[in-house]
């Protein structure tokens, strides 16, 4: 976000306040949209039911009711729990989510930070949530939680690699780690000399896109990769002992991260806030950019949640095999191919 908005000069504290506020919106809005749109509605329609219908038109205010419910619940801490770690764990997970939202630009001048290693930062901070999950699993003093936490750690570490490697292709093609630069590269790109729709990297990096989505699915511990929570085996894994507000924080963390990863995927592969046919430096994008981004995010999230509600879950060893024996070699091949093509063209 540049220091000038609508030609109003903002003081530093005002900027900081605005950033904090927008950061909050940036985390809560995707979470809310995804929970309502997919968890409440799409899932229900897939399962031949209506979902919440009473609170507000089409149950649109159900979200508030749910949040209110969680606020009312007692904050239970198991007697044998490591209280400090137990209390901290949801915050650590949320920190990861909040840091992740920073790097995603929503318009040519709409960004929280614009650094040259944006993608690198995003992938780095996304790993922080592992620590939070491990903390939760350990501190709960429950065997289910412990197994869940360990599974989560193993899984997230394993899928960190394909996630990073899938992004490499994009980075090579765009020639920059800067997220804004990646958007611009797609906006100004050309397909065999035709620049009508720019060059969204999904066309050239569809393998990377698929790997990225699979890895994101695993990072989010959603089915088919939800062994850490696996409610039919481990009750709910590392979440078992959490209740009330702390559970809500994990919940928001999960869905907000889903939204932000979707936005990241949309930014890297679908052109981000850019709409084909317009000048990417147009000030118009500062207004419609966020909407476009949210639209594309919902599109990507649809894929994620579609898989979530359809597939059964892997077993832990099958999941590791998928990561190490299939996804990582495939993404390495993808990088090599991208590199060669980059040199050729």
């Amino acid at each position, binding site marked *: 976000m540049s220091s000038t908005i609508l030609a109003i000069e903002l003081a530093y504290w005002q900027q900081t306040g605005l950033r904090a506020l927008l950061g909050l919106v940036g985390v809560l809005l995707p979470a809310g949209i995804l929970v309502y749109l997919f968890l409440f509605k799409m899932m229900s329609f897939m399962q031949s039911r209506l979902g919440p219908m009473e609170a507000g038109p089409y149950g649109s205010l159900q979200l508030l009711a749910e949040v209110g419910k969680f606020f009312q619940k007692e904050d239970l801490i198991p007697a044998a729990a490591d209280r400090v770690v137990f209390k901290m764990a949801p915050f650590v997970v949320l920190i990861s989510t909040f840091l992740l939202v920073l790097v995603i630009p929503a318009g040519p001048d709409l960004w929280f930070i614009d650094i040259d290693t944006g993608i690198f930062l995003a992938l780095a901070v996304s790993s922080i949530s592992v620590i939070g999950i491990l903390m939760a699993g350990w501190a709960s003093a429950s065997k289910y939680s412990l197994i869940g936490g360990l599974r989560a750690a193993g899984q997230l570490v394993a899928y960190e690699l394909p996630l990073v490697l899938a992004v490499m292709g994009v980075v090579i093609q765009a020639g920059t780690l800067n997220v804004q630069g990646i958007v611009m590269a797609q906006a100004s790109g050309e397909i065999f000399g035709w620049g009508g729709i720019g060059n969204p990297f999904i066309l050239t990096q569809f393998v990377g896109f698929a790997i990225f989505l699979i890895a994101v699915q695993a990072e989010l511990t959603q089915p088919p990769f939800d062994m850490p929570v696996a409610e039919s085996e481990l*009750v709910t894994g590392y979440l078992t002992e959490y209740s009330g507000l702390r559970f809500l924080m994990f919940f928001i963390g999960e869905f907000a991260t889903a939204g932000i990863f979707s936005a990241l995927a949309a930014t890297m592969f679908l052109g981000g806030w850019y709409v084909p046919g317009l000048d990417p430096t147009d000030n118009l994008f500062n207004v419609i950019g966020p909407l476009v981004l949210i639209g594309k995010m919902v599109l990507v999230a649809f894929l994620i949640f579609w898989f979530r509600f359809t597939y059964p879950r892997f077993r832990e060893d099958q999941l590791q095999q998928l990561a190490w024996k299939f996804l990582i070699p495939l993404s390495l091949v993808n990088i090599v191919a991208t590199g060669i093509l980059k040199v050729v063209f």
Partner: protein
Amino acid sequence: MTDVSNRNQLAYIAAQASDARVNVEFETEGMTLNLGPQHPATHGTLRVIVKLDGERVLRADPMMGYMHRGYEKLAEVRTYPQVTTLVNRIDWLGSFANEVPFILAAERLMEVEAPPRAQWIRTILFELSRIANVILFLGDMGVQLGAVTPVFFAFRDREFVLNQIEAVTGGRFHPNFDRIGGLKDDIPKGWTEETTGVLGRIRTFCDEMEDLVTGNEIFQARTRGIGVIPAEVGLAYGLSGANIRGSGVDWDLRRDGGVGLAHDQVDWKVWTHPDGDSFSRYWVRLQEVREACGIIEQLLGGIPSGPVMAKVPRIIKVPAGEAYVETENPLGVMGYYVVSKGDLVPFRVKIRSASFSNISITPWVLEGAYVPDVVSILASLYFILGDIDR
């Protein structure tokens, strides 16, 4: 520099360290995980105590009795017609099927036979309760493996089957409709056409399952080769129903039992699968639902006319004797060993329920499995708690 207390501390630490070294050298102690009695995978109150090494099961000990209702004792103080009310609650998902073997045992002792029409309607209801029971399994199998959607389809379509059962019997879950010598009532008007429509829905449901679950690579990876039960082990443990047919044993009491149901009047096929793993048990059940649709459809086409009740005295006294009758219930072989002394009440009723024997193999089959496989195996063995605990 070091004073006494510090030296003591050092000695203590040294001892701890050497202990730790010893511990590193030896195997670590396994972890005991308590699956249940309140656990999502045990849909009911089964409790499985598993001893784990990492995620591998070293030993599994099922504990039950959380729902033991003592039906064998209660049946000793109830008249024969009253017993059906009890046995309805054994396998509560296919409850009409529970009544049938008991009634058949009493009929054998009394040497009465239900009129053909009653037998046909009995068979139709028997198969309808099989559908109502097994399609829930098909959905539940998905839930246990993490796919949340199929179970909603199962619940949706089961409702239509239950409606049909309710239309005849007046009870969705506990019909209590079978009588010694026949049935309480005839089927209502227009019921056969409606039921044919419902069967179409069930077939569609089976196709959906085939698309959504059976063909899914992850589902196959989670079930194929998991929990393999060889035929002879399954037989020695008393497995029955789809569990034993999933191990390749071609044995179905509907065809081989020779009891008074109308299954021998129609064309149908006993499905078996040679593998004996979780997938084959699932697959056999899926085929059996289809087959049950076929059986019902044929039966509906030719229900003989006549009364639905044979001539039996109003107060039923069963002559002295013993009879064991078993039928192929949704969960497997269900039998009643009825001992009568010529009274209004049975002297002893031994209830041989399918799930009890089916689940008794768990210590054998769970050994060496992984925790996620425990869920897959338990789900594929398919038990109803009421059928275990009785």
